[in-house]
């Protein structure tokens, strides 16, 4: 795959993330590397940059996954007497809206998507995506 083709994939990924409201995960500023000598900032080479955005998306999915919730409660149950069966987030009252609770158990299972994403990252790594030249 050429650098131009990888750039096209990065563009596609950024558009897709923006379309699902996760554009902040692709914010270039998150990926900037600073040259210790010159103080100049630059982005990683295209292949590495693509993988880094995919990994950021992967981490995001991991903390929105019902499986993570189940896994955490199960681990707690192994070590705690009368362990909790559920977890909620208490949202403060805002103007016109009373205090509310958000049930973390309402999250969707994301194992399929996470699995596909993990496979893709692995394939890209196997294809030798790595540093080639820094982009300014």
């Amino acid at each position, binding site marked *: *795959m050429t650098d131009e*083709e*990888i750039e*096209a*994939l990065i563009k*596609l990924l950024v558009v*897709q993330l923006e*379309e*699902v*409201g996760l554009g*902040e*995960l692709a*914010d270039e500023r*998150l*990926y900037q590397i600073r040259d210790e000598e010159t103080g100049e900032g630059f982005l990683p080479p295209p292949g590495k940059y693509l993988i880094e955005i995919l990994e*950021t998306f992967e*981490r*995001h999915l*991991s*903390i*929105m*996954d019902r499986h*993570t*919730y189940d*896994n*955490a*409660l199960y*681990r*707690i149950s*192994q*070590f*705690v*007497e*009368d*362990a*909790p*069966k*559920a*977890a*909620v*987030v*208490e*949202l*403060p009252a805002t103007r016109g809206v009373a205090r509310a*609770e*958000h049930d*973390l158990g*309402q*999250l*969707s299972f*994301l194992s*399929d*998507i996470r699995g*596909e*994403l993990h*496979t*893709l990252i692995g*394939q*890209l790594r*196997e294809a030798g995506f790595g540093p080639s030249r820094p982009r300014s």
Partner: protein
Amino acid sequence: MKEAVARKQIENIFKKYNHLPKGGGGQLAGITGGKLYELYVLSHVVERLHKWGFSLKFIGNTLKFKASPGKIKLSDPHFEITPPHPNSQKSLWLFVDIEFETLGTPRVKAKDKSRHHEIDIVVVDVDHGNPSFKNIFLGVECKAVAKFRKGILKEVLGIRRELSLLSDPARSLLSALTTTHLKAVPADPPSEYWLAHIDAAGDGYDDSPEAFGIDFIHLEP
């Protein structure tokens, strides 16, 4: 790998993502992610405490995280912790999303917004109000940010400064209650302070903070 194959895979992933039931997006999604990570880290904290011989009991029905941190209240769901040391009569509690009174406050009789700072998970020896820095045996910060940046390091250094003074290493308050967790921290009072981070890049920032008794722990679900 061909570009067309990778393109197809990316499109498929987002197609599936788009078909998921839509929960609360925006700010609520941000809160959910952060608190689910806190739950995940909490599960590892209780596992470690158990491994070191502490007994834990949950008080309440449902674990409750707070979008806005506050004071310790026994009416809130929490964990009671019994130390393993046979001679210890110490009672400890684990709470989430608590604001503690900073080390600087009694020194200058602070009255402004600098009096309190939040810690995501705390093990303390008091059961009400804003715990003092002296009451904190363990504090755990949970960072589920997209990318680990130096700002997080500066934040935890600031919290550590308001928890303890730099001193010669001493056995940690937690460690002193067990025989299986030998831990010295260069802090007075010798509280333990952990930074749990989801991005492995955080491990590239842990050398200097170690000198102040900050433990970086990479936990990724």
